[in-house]
């Protein structure tokens, strides 16, 4: 379980807090959606989960984050990466290997997996995201959707308990989005916790998260059942979010 306890964080050189007194609990086997307008602290929240904050990003942090009871301040990002895998918005930032296979094996090698275990986990991760057939290709030759799936495989191969994903659907076509949904649902089925930061509420609704958090100005202003959150159209719209289409239609029908 990941427990975020009263965390307030301000980046070095920034005049305002990126997160303010945020508390939440994340369990295995569930999908969590984190939504909010730009600058609401969504990405900062993800960086907290795998220890990039406070280990990499400088700033003032109050409160604590516990990953399976371990304070993220007490463990390195490398150690935490075995528990929480973070998939970044732009996959190109991580690629440097000649082939897809080598790229995916980078993480397992970094955390010191056995050679046999590396082979097994790379194959499993590539099959999970449907890229096993493309394993000999260069990561740079893949399409946008394939690159995104590759970045997920790079993290999955480390067998983390939690998967935190930043804006997975940006620049993805509907087929790629569907494929991403399948991957995340499978992760949930395998007992992993999935945390997804997104602006794409339509896609998130189709994915079917268990809990949704709404952030604004670094504060969790709403949390709970996705149906309740998405039905509150006015609240979502005030926060610069487009509610899922079916909820807009329902609302219009009610008014009518």
């Amino acid at each position, binding site marked *: 379980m990941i427990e975020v306890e009263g965390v307030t964080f301000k980046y070095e050189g920034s005049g305002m807090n990126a997160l303010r007194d945020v508390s939440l609990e994340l369990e295995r086997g569930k999908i969590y959606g984190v939504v909010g307008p730009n600058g609401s602290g969504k990405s900062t929240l993800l960086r907290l989960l795998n220890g*990039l904050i406070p280990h*990499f990003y400088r700033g003032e942090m109050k409160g604590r984050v516990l990953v399976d009871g371990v304070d993220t301040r007490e463990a*390195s990002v490398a150690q935490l*990466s075995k528990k929480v895998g973070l998939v970044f918005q732009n996959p190109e930032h*991580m690629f440097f290997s000649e082939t897809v296979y080598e790229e995916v094996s980078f993480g397992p090698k970094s955390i010191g997996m056995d050679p046999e275990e590396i082979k097994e986990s790379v194959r499993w991760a590539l099959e999970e995201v449907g890229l096993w057939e493309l394993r000999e290709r260069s990561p740079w030759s893949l399409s946008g959707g394939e690159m995104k799936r590759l970045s997920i495989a790079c993290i999955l191969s*480390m067998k983390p308990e939690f998967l935190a994903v930043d804006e997975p659907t940006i620049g993805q076509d509907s087929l790629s989005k569907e494929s991403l949904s399948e991957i995340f649902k499978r992760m949930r089925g395998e007992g992993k916790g999935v945390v997804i930061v997104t602006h794409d509420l339509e896609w998130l609704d189709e994915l079917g998260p268990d809990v949704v958090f709404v952030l604004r100005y670094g504060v969790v202003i709403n949390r709970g059942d996705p149906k309740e959150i998405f039905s509150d159209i006015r609240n979502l719209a005030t926060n610069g979010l487009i509610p899922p289409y079916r909820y807009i239609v329902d609302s219009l029908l009610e008014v009518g």
Partner: protein
Amino acid sequence: MLDPMGMVEIFRTQVGETPYSRLNPSTKFILFASFIALPLISASLPIQIFSLIAQVPLIILSRSERRVKRSLKASLLFIVVLVVLNYLTTHSLEFSLAMVLRLVSMIIASAIFMTGTSPAEIGDLLTKLKVPLQITFSFVIALRFIPVLADDVVMIITSQVSRGYELERGGFLEKVKRLIPILIPMIIIAIRRGHQLAEALETKAFGAIERRSSYVVYEYGRGDWILLIYAIIVITIGLVVGTLTPQFQLLPFRC
């Protein structure tokens, strides 16, 4: 001690609303050039100390205390190496100290200039000085892209660290080798950005005519005149102190 992101900060232009940023770009450039030239007038310690003290009003006017501190902190390794090498070759603590203060003085001058001058202003200034457009533009683009590439580097490092990669492991050579997963994506991203930029410039008719027109007019205000006089006074004092002191030697240890 080694802080590459801090080194990048030295070249990151960041213009806020300060009395210094409102100055005419040519005034800022003259001040910058003066404070780069001043510590070079002589290797004597008094000149270096004077050069540092004379920059205090500019630090206050540009509100660049933070930037100066960060730049100096980032350069700490080079400063230490400079002191050690100078002391080993000259056996003079005073000379070593003077050389360090010279470097510090130049770093401060750069930090002030970069804090208060936008790349566009630098470009306009170079154009006024009749520097060819291609050179001016390349320089301005390089300045503009430093923060972009710096942000890319941050993202690359965080991506690799999140994959369990430890940058700080091992001895010096091992650490250098461990930079490969950072450098390769950085180079590829930089080349891609360069390509995108070239395409964007083509679509915006860059290079269609030799002399581009400009609508920006820079005027000289009272602050500009005051600071230009200040630069003249500072350089004059530097020349007088530098030439009158017996240590008027640029590299005395070679004599």
